[in-house]
């Protein structure tokens, strides 16, 4: 390349092309190469293989249930992050924050509704996804361990939903969590200790609210995101989605 190619004028002329090339890190190729690079050259898409089996695309095979669960998780992370700006995990303020969301914050009601309904939907869709995997026998070798990770993801989803249930600090939340945590105390010998550890006391109060809040916004989402990463990675490593053997 000649010196003139580095002149300011040339640089400005080439600005759009150079910015695009610096982001995509690749030159032009054949159509096939471009399509392949669109997948493996993209951080967010590279969990996908460059080519997929047509059976994986059959809507009637997966019904997209796992993907829907993941999308609901993304919607929950985004709406939950916004809700955190308006929420204080204090028994004095939590309920007032709810009322503010309802009457003061612009689109606050919608934000809370999105988070609430997505959470219920996620529990349901994770369960439906498990049913799909069972009825298609997709937990068979070599996918046994991914099923195990899936069971843990189901449990994490339930705990995420349960910890979030307390946060509005209304009668529904308070007594549902009281009932739920009482179930843990029926465990022989350890029961009362487990409930004390869960609630930070013998009954649902400020300590329980703070514990549930920290679990709900930090610990469990991180655990869920990590397990999701492993879950998706294992799909690739185990040879993609299951399909009939004689294809």
């Amino acid at each position, binding site marked *: 390349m000649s010196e003139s190619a580095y002149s300011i004028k040339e640089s400005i002329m080439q600005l759009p092309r150079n910015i695009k090339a610096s982001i995509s890190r690749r030159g032009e190729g054949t159509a096939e190469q471009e399509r392949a690079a669109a997948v493996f050259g993209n951080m967010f898409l590279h969990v996908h293989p460059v*080519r997929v089996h047509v059976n994986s695309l059959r809507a009637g095979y997966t019904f997209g249930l796992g993907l829907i669960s993941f999308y609901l998780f993304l919607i929950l992370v985004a709406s939950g992050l916004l809700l955190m700006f308006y929420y204080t995990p204090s028994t004095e303020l939590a309920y007032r924050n709810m009322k503010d969301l309802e009457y003061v914050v612009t689109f606050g009601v919608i934000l809370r509704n999105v988070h609430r309904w997505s959470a219920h939907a996620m529990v349901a869709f994770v369960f439906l996804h498990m049913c799909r995997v069972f009825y298609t026998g997709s*937990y068979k070798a070599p996918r046994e361990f991914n099923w*195990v990770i899936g069971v843990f993801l189901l449990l994490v989803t339930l705990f995420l939903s349960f910890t979030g249930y307390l946060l509005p600090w209304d009668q529904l939340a308070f007594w549902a969590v009281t009932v739920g945590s009482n179930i843990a105390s029926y465990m022989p010998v350890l029961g009362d200790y487990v409930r004390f550890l869960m609630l930070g006391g013998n009954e649902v109060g400020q300590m329980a609210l703070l514990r549930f809040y920290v679990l709900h916004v930090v610990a469990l989402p991180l655990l869920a995101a990590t397990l999701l990463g492993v879950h998706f990675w294992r799909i690739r490593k185990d040879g993609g989605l299951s399909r009939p053997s004689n294809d």
Partner: protein
Amino acid sequence: MQAAKKEEIFPKDPNKTYSLMAIVDGDSFQVEKGPEDTVQSWPHLMVRELGLFLLVLAVILGVSLLFNAPLEEAANPQHSTNPAKAPWYFVGIQELVSYSALLGGIVTPALIVVSLLLLPYLDRNPKGTGVWFSRDRRVATILFTIFVVAMVILILIGQFLRGPNWHLYLPWSN
């Protein structure tokens, strides 16, 4: 199609007894199709994934515009609601607890989780993989369906048929 260019891309070879007679415009059976029945993820998979995301987002937004999330009075530890119900996904367990605290609240949930974790190591016959309700897996299908139906029935009873003091009542009676 790129192959249909004007210039002669397959020059006639005098040593061969055949020659290219014509180039027909159109897709062959092998276009966009790999030897193992695969297609490019971009665009075939990605477009579907994006479409599904937009659908999920639209449905959630639609439901959120129509229905408000429940919010009752502020929590009052002195005054319990009657009945006090767990979130719907735990109401089935709560229903079991009303029969036996230890068996329903601890043993059954623990058994369910342990069986789910061990399932792929106990049911190892690869027959019927990749097919919905395969005939080769009839017993497994029936057992799992009993489990699912039992869970759903317990949740429905707990959620809709249990009134004050956890007595049976009908949803339309006050």
